């Protein structure tokens, strides 16, 4: 689906991603974890083509990401940035319709409007279809941006901190929605800070520290020592009803 092979990236000589390799399987829901500055956002940007690796290879569907045209890549992969705002007012319908951009030549047509309507109903946004996106709550806006990504009909969806500015309810709603999409066959990759949210909803995990991949795999990778080393916080890992919880104790 999407694979990274020995990817390196540096900003002004400062290494941000250092020899990262990983394969994201079709239909997986992967959380990219790590403390601030560990390279999560950079890794996401390397995958969606916003940044180019200085060495190593990023492949999407078996093809180098750099070999895709911008529109072609947008048909395969959707991206939801951490923060975004519209310069001028735009309705929810228009915002989601924008997701059809990779398929539109002059202006969106009847099919594009139909797909948009279907997504709005599917995500429960039909009642606010003609509302201004800039006047919605954070949770609603995030849902609209995911709807726009869905309108791209991608095989892959990348989200940078999708729960960063959401309250507890909307955090769970957003990740629940992403898990549903992943269960439907879409490959979903999120960078996220909350370990417990990630553990509840994601199926695979990558932990970055200082630009290096220090752990990858399923829930079994979470060990108290690993979390302490990466986050510099002593934690307790509790398992209850087959669910793992990470309880922070104190900073190291």
């Amino acid at each position, binding site marked *: 689906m999407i694979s990274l092979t020995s990817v390196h990236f540096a900003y002004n000589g400062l290494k941000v991603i250092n020899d990262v390799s990983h394969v994201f399987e079709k239909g997986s829901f992967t959380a990219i974890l790590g403390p601030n500055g560990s390279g999560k956002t950079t890794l996401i940007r390397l995958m969606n083509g916003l940044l180019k690796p200085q060495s190593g290879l990023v492949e999407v569907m078996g093809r180098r990401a750099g070999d895709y045209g*911008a529109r072609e890549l947008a048909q395969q992969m959707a991206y939801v940035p951490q923060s975004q705002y519209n310069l001028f007012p*735009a309705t929810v319908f228009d915002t989601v319709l924008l997701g059809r951009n990779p398929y539109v030549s002059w202006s969106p047509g009847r099919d594009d409007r*139909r797909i948009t309507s279907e997504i*709005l109903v599917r995500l429960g946004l039909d009642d606010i279809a003609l509302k201004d996106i800039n006047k919605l709550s954070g949770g609603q806006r995030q849902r609209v941006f995911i709807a726009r990504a869905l309108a791209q009909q991608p095989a892959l969806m990348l989200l940078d901190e999708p729960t960063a500015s959401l309250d507890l309810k909307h955090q769970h709603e957003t990740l629940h929605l992403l898990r549903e999409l992943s269960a439907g066959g879409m490959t979903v990759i999120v960078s996220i800070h909350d370990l417990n949210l990630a553990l509840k909803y994601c199926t695979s995990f990558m932990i970055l520290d200082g630009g290096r991949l220090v752990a990858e795999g399923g829930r079994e990778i979470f060990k108290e020592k690993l979390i302490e080393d990466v986050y510099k916080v002593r934690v307790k890992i509790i398992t209850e009803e087959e669910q793992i919880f990470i309880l922070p104790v104190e900073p190291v």
Partner: protein
Amino acid sequence: MKREHEIEKQYSLFVNRKGRFIWIAGVVALILAVTGLALGPSSISFRDLLALFSDSRDALHHGIIFQIRLPRVLAGILSGMALSVSGVVMQSVLRNPLGSPFTLGISNAAAFGAAFAIIIFGAGSMYSSSSDAVMIANPYVVTASAFVWSLGACFLILLVAKRRGATPENMILTGIIASSLFTALTTGLQYVADDVELATIVFWTFGDLSKGGWNELLLQVVIVVPVMVYFYRNRWNYNALDAGDETARSLGVNIGRLRLTGMVVASLATAAVVSFYGIIAFVGLVVPHMVRRITGGDERFLIPGAALAGAAFMTGCDIVARTLLSPVVLPVGILTSLIGAPLFVLLLIKGKGGSQWR
């Protein structure tokens, strides 16, 4: 599927309202254009206007309409379209509501070009006729020089964009630099100019639609029409750009190319106006914001709406310029600023807590 159909229907009604505005703006522009033909120091009735296309036409009226008023009205339409749509595009590509054809120093570069031709090429000899009319001796040299220097401002932008990236910040800063540079150069030329040259430079900077004839108009058509088609073709991409660079890129838009081409093409359209007619301010700023109040930020409607509203605004201003102190004809540039500035203040005050732009 019933709910989906319902939403599509609601959306169609919503966008049809915006479509209606485009029609209304077109009709208003047409009415003003016809009025512009009829009104002036010598009024011509609508019946006489129609008679011009029959065998019983009046030779004097024919001369007034086809030699003076029609080129002027068409110049107003084309200039209004070019300046307004350039404003819309610049606001979008710069992600700045204050973007306008003047943000990048295009008009200042054109003014310098005119001053340069008047002083260096000696195109500035003028005479006072019996009616004290000021004439530029060699208008083609002045226009060509203004145009070339306008393009010089474009190349400065291109150069910075190539070296430092076509980001909104780089574009705005380059515009400020270009404005200051060309203003300083013009001031320098004015300082060494004699009285006649100085008066000619000042006269050139007055935005006046009477400066051009059919030849200038033809050249303007050759530039402005393809520019309009280009902007119309990319209107959906500008919507993506309004959502932010990262979003636009992830939606398949080549943002660097779109931004750079948009700026250069908008600059070219602006140069095609200011080089021929002088500095016409505020149209590129006030018309996009007026239209945005009605069509919202959707560039699919904003671009054609601003083109027609800009044509109407410019034609309307020119009618006022010709009739306010008749038989004295004021330069339209004075009217666009006199009408545009209070209108812009009104738009700011009426804004719902600044929510119209962020």
